[in-house]
């Protein structure tokens, strides 16, 4: 079974040379730490920066330079700042190649819900609706089940949707899955996790074909 860093590490392997990538808050942010050397990528943050670098050294933080998670950041050579309209021109115009974000629920048709629990929690969608409606490649990073142990990979989302038919791949603490016509296709198992355990934890239609390899990190 993977921890959060493990999930980030596995997702980092999906990041290809030349990609512009938008990382959501939480696990996705960790992905930046695991992109292999020799893979040139640039991270976009929808609040208006391209070419994000690591956190600043203590004392160097600048209130005017943050990411979408409101964290102080630095920029790398070749970076640029821009306004929100241009930032979403990048996203909506499909110039950002890959979006990695968290989810509360994903359905086996690629629907995703991650912004609202009616009557309980409403943080808002932020840029997530624009991202999932636009990106050609969307990877969800999340735990396979919620705190109550219930599956987050469903036949149908129960929460208000963020986007429809948009998720391409899901990396959880248990597995890597891709959305195919009619279900979650199991691609890889997390180290030490059996297909049976994944089946148990998946409410939506799970497609298992042949031997499912254990993931390499």
């Amino acid at each position, binding site marked *: 079974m993977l921890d959060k860093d493990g999930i980030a590490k596995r997702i980092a392997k999906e990041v290809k040379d030349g990609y512009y990538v938008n990382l959501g808050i939480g696990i996705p942010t960790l992905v930046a730490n695991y992109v292999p050397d020799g893979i040139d990528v640039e991270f976009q*943050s*929808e*609040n*208006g*920066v391209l070419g994000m670098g*690591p*956190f*600043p*050294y*203590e*004392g*160097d*933080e*600048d*209130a*005017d*330079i*943050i*990411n*979408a*998670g*409101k*964290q*102080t*950041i630095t920029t790398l050579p070749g970076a640029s*700042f*821009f*306004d*929100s*309209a241009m*930032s*979403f021109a990048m*996203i*909506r115009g499909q110039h950002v190649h890959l979006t990695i974000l968290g989810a509360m629920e994903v359905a086996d048709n690629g*629907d995703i819900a991650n*912004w*609202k629990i009616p*009557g309980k*929690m*409403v*943080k*808002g*969608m*932020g*840029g*997530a*609706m*624009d991202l999932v*409606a*636009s990106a050609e490649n969307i990877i969800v990073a999340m735990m396979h089940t919620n705190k109550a142990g219930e599956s987050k990979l469903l036949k149908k989302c129960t929460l*208000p*949707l*963020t*986007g*429809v*038919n948009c998720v391409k791949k899901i990396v959880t603490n248990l597995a890597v899955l891709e959305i195919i016509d009619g279900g979650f296709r199991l691609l890889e198992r997390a180290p030490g996790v059996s297909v049976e355990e994944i089946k148990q934890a998946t409410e939506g239609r799970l497609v298992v074909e042949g031997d499912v390899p254990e993931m390499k990190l």
Partner: protein
Amino acid sequence: MINKRVASVTEALQGVRDEMTFMLGGFGLCGIPENSIAELVRLGIRDITCISNNAGVDDFGLGLLLRKRQIRKMISSYVGENDEFERQMLSGELEVELTPQGTLAEKCRAAQAGIPAFFTPAGYGTEVAEGKETREFEGKMYVMEEAFRADFSIVKAWKGDEAGNLIFKGTARNFNPCMCGAAKITVAEVEELVPAGELDPNQIHIPGIFVQRIFRGDHYEKRIEQRTVRKR
């Protein structure tokens, strides 16, 4: 040169009234018009509508206006950093319209640019699209969104000149440029206000034509929400 300089925040906000609609720049607490928000609190106007990506935190930014119950309605994309906000919203005291962030930005930019409506894929198939026209272009579905209408845009820039030209800094830029000229009156507060001619005309982010009033803000706290650092 048409001089947009006013002497103070009080002069800059002349004409604000109860029930008006305000656009306010900033992302989180980054690039918010601190001095103008303080003045809106001081003036005590009520039942206002605020178009702003976020709602501040409990004791800073728009949170100050929320705490005094001056805001009747918020139009935002993300409001997750504010307990008082969540309380007022869940109790029904505060009306909230949540809008995808890119749509929020584009609705501002559309108002600035005289575009009454446009199509975006964001929110298609979700409750955000309910009651809105949808349409297919090239095999993909889109939602029609209309430009915002507001009385005042209040933005914060890094440098400005007397002609109203603005330059923003880093990610404090965010929604501020898109909101300039997107309301009947645009007020810009800046950290540094210089005479016309000192800024390079080639490096101006927002030309003065989009700004009606400009003043130098007395004080910037620039509070950091998530101070994240690494060890040297």
